[in-house]
Structures are given as structure tokens and as C-alpha cells.
């Protein structure tokens, strides 16, 4: 499977949207990929069941950082209910390129951190980590 580093992916990698931290987030989570050291932290400000603001910080490959940047754009202004529903297919759709099996962990790192932040804030059920083992 050939991965295709499209221009918009490089743009999100080099100019990430919503990069940084929030002063007073009410949802936060962070995680790293132990195999490659990719890191990601997400801050959310949720008001009236809407994701009012989102910021992320991280370091890692173009796939992991572009996926985080795109995900941040995707959830801004969305209802918590909609964000809870977001899954791997939504991330793959926004990346728009085939992701080789060895790189899926990179692509889904931000999604995992996003759901963890909502779970820690009591807004969704904690995710089952076994799901990662398929």
C-alpha cells in the first residue's frame, strides 16, 4: 500500500491548526505512542454541550500531527454528542490517503487522546483499550 503525502497533509504538519494550550480547559488528556515516541495532548473548552475551543500540542510524524490538526478543525463548534460518535473512519476520510498498517497508530493517536479527554471529563464511557489490538 503506497502512502501519498498530499500537499494538505504537509500543510497541516508544518502549519498545525489550533496548536497550543488553553488557559482553562475543562477536558484534557495526553498520550504517547511508546514504540515511536509520538506525543499528543489535547485541551478542550466545553460550554453548553458544545466544543467551544480546542488546542493540541504534540510532536511526531506528519501523519500523526496532520491527523491531530485536522481532527481539531473537525470538532471545533461541534456538539459533544457528535464528537463522541467520531471514529477511525472519520480520521481516515479527512486524511484522504491510504494508511499502511504500521502507521495506523500514528493516524489514530489524536482520536484516542480526544476520546480519553471526554472520558476523563465524564462525557463518554471510557474506551476499551483492547480495541487497539486488532
Amino acid at each position: 500500500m503506497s502512502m501519498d503525502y498530499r500537499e494538505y497533509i504537509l500543510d497541516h504538519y508544518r502549519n498545525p491548526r489550533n496548536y497550543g494550550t488553553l488557559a482553562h480547559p475543562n477536558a484534557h488528556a495526553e498520550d504517547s505512542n511508546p514504540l515511536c515516541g509520538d506525543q499528543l495532548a489535547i485541551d478542550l473548552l466545553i460550554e453548553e454541550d458544545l466544543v467551544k475551543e480546542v488546542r493540541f500540542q504534540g510532536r511526531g510524524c506528519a501523519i500523526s500531527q496532520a491527523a491531530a490538526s485536522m481532527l481539531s478543525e473537525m470538532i471545533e463548534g461541534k456538539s459533544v454528542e457528535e464528537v463522541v460518535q467520531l471514529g477511525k473512519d472519520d480520521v481516515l476520510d479527512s486524511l484522504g490517503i491510504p494508511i499502511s498498517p504500521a502507521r495506523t497508530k500514528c493516524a489514530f493517536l489524536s482520536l484516542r487522546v480526544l476520546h480519553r479527554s471526554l472520558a476523563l471529563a465524564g462525557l463518554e464511557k471510557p474506551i476499551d483499550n483492547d480495541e487497539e489490538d486488532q
Partner: protein
Amino acid sequence: MTTVQQPATRSADDIRGDFPILSRLVHGKPLVYLDSTASSQKPVAVIEAMSQYYETTHANVHRGVYEISEEATAKMERARVKVARFINARQSKQVIFTRNTTESINLVAYSWGYANIKAGDLIVLTGMEHHSNLVPWQMLAQRAGARLEFVPVTDDGLLQLDVYEQLLQQQPRLVAFTHMSNVLGTVNPAQEMIAQAHAAGALVLLDAAQSVPHMPVDVQALDVDFLCFSAHKMLGPTGIGVLYGKRDLLEAMPPFMGGGDMIRTVGLRESTWNDLPWKFEAGTPAIAEAIGLGAAVDYLNAIGMENARQHEQNITAYAMEQVQQVPGLIIYGPGAARRGGVISFTLGDIHPHDLASILDQEVGVAIRAGHHCAQPLMERFGLAATARASFYVYTITDDVDMLVKGLHKALEIFKL
């Protein structure tokens, strides 16, 4: 004194014919394998020695009284003798089979360490250790209340030997360091460092995972106390490694794991231990793997370790010269003369994982990307990850040229 006869030099082109995997395709392109530091490929001689054993001789060792069990035992013990001669151990009973380098180091940390390291004792390590020669000592130090100190690494990727000498004045019980860095390729001056440690009253464990496969290593000339390495990095199978130790130390050490094979007599409440090396080999060993390791040793002997070292120095010098010309590429570590066949590098703002993906998909080149199980060393150089290309007896200049072609392709894709 006997002079060592080096075998006639075989070309890497010729050697490649012995490695079936090197003729396969990846993504429709010939495989260019530049990750031998992580694990080497296997020649037909090793694969066949193992399959022949399973086809004709397999039985459990050290207990059967029937023909094939005796044959299996003899084959496995012959492999031990080959390994002993390969590193010039005085006796084959000083060669203990483990699973890998990591288990060899853990064996020493648990068995020797828990018997000898007391609260306040000092263990000296270096800033360029693989996690396998760091974490076992952290665990020992935490349990025993011992201290760890580290020889720092210079900007050129060398050990700061003046600091080493200062640390030795604090009379450490043990010094453990890598013979060759798996990240920087640095070959450390083991013989001098061991002599200095002994003069200070310390024992030395040498992590030889990267040196035994790539250069002549003589445990008696080094006068090293413990030496650890893995078969799979030296053309042999996975699942078997070696701990060499000085005999008086091994004799005095308590067993590491209890079970079958390592005992002499067993009562309900207590047991007595078998002789070396079996005292440290509880349970059914990796018999086919030991035989495969023996075949790998034969294969390397036929090439000659001086020849192997020379070839890798040549290919490394060529590779450093070529990749340095790629714009934006930074190599970490010392010059070619002071390193083995390993080059860690970064290229512009391209993350090493992206680089490895592009090399794999575009030109079929397999390299490693990440922290290489040496996170403290990465932090020392302010890096989260590097790309790493590494070489072995079967690496040819065409492989390096394909790497360079792939690096240019990556620059193009990342618009650099």
C-alpha cells in the same frame, strides 16, 4: 603464540547469494535491507542446520538415553564449544545460553547483583546505553538502594573518559557499558576501560550485542568479567543469546531461574545445583536455536571477523560520504574510523517515521526510525527520534546508492 589465519576475502556480492531473503521484492522492488543492527538476515547454512536438526535429530537434551536425544545433546554442546572458541573463552562451560542479550544482562543483575550489590554501592553506566543495559540496573539499584552514575557522551558521540576516571575514584562495584553504540555506532575503547575499572576494584559487564557480530572479540584479551550478546544479530536465529562470565564469578553466583536441568538433586524443601553452565539454564533450552547459532559462528569464521570489520568500515565510510551530500542531512556520532556500520541521521523537518515509510514504499529500503531503545541518548542530542541505516557483511554500495536515491525522493515529496 599462534597467528590467526584470516580466510580469503569473499566479496559482499558473493556473500549475498547465501541469503535467500535478499532476493525478495517489497512493493515490487528488490529489498534493500539496512536494519541489521536491529536484527541480521540469515544465510542458508543457518536455516538448513536448524531444519535438518528438526527433520533428523530432535529430542529433548540432557536426559534421553536413546540415540536421537544423545545426538541432539551432542549437537547443542558442540554449538557451545563453537561459541566459546569464537570469543576465545577458556572453557565452554563459561558460555551460558540465554534468550538474548537482555536476558544475559538481567541474569547478572539478578544473580550477581542481588548477592553483591548493597545499599550505597555504586554502579557506573554510560549515557549511550541501550535500555537493556540500563533498566535492569535501575531495578537492581532501586531494590538494593545502590547508586547509578553515568559517563556522559560528547557532542561527537564519544564517551567522556576523564569523567569515567573520576567516577572510578568513587570505587564502583560494577561498570556496565556498551562495546558499540546501537545508535551512534561509536566503538568504545573497551580494553582500556576494563583495565581501568579493574585497577579501581570494579567488575565489568560488556554489552557486546553490536560488537560480537561485527568485529573480532576476545574475552581473554579484553579480560572482561561478563560479556553479553544475541545470536539474531550475528546471522543466527532469534530466541538465543549468550552470557560469558569468568568461571570463579559464575561458580559463586546463585541460580537465576529454578526448574528442570539446573538441579543436581531436588527435595521437597531444598535442592542442590547443577554444574556450569547448566546451573543457569533452567528448563528445556532453545536447542535448534543453539545449533543455528553454531552454524552462524561457522559461517562468520569462514568469512573472517577481521574481513567483516574491514568490509563494514569501507561501506560505512562510503555511506557517510554519500549521505552527507544530501541537503539538510545531519549525521550523529563520530567519524567513520571510530564507529561500526551504523549511521543515525535526520533530514530537514522530515520526521524519521515519514522518512522510513517513504524509503520503504518508494525504493524498497528498510531502515529503522525511532528512539532505538536509547531514549536518554536521544534526549542528550535533543532528539525525539532519528533514522538509522546499518550495514553487515552482505551490504553493497548499490544498497547505499538506493538509500541516497530514496532520501532525494523524500526531499521531493516534502518539497524541501
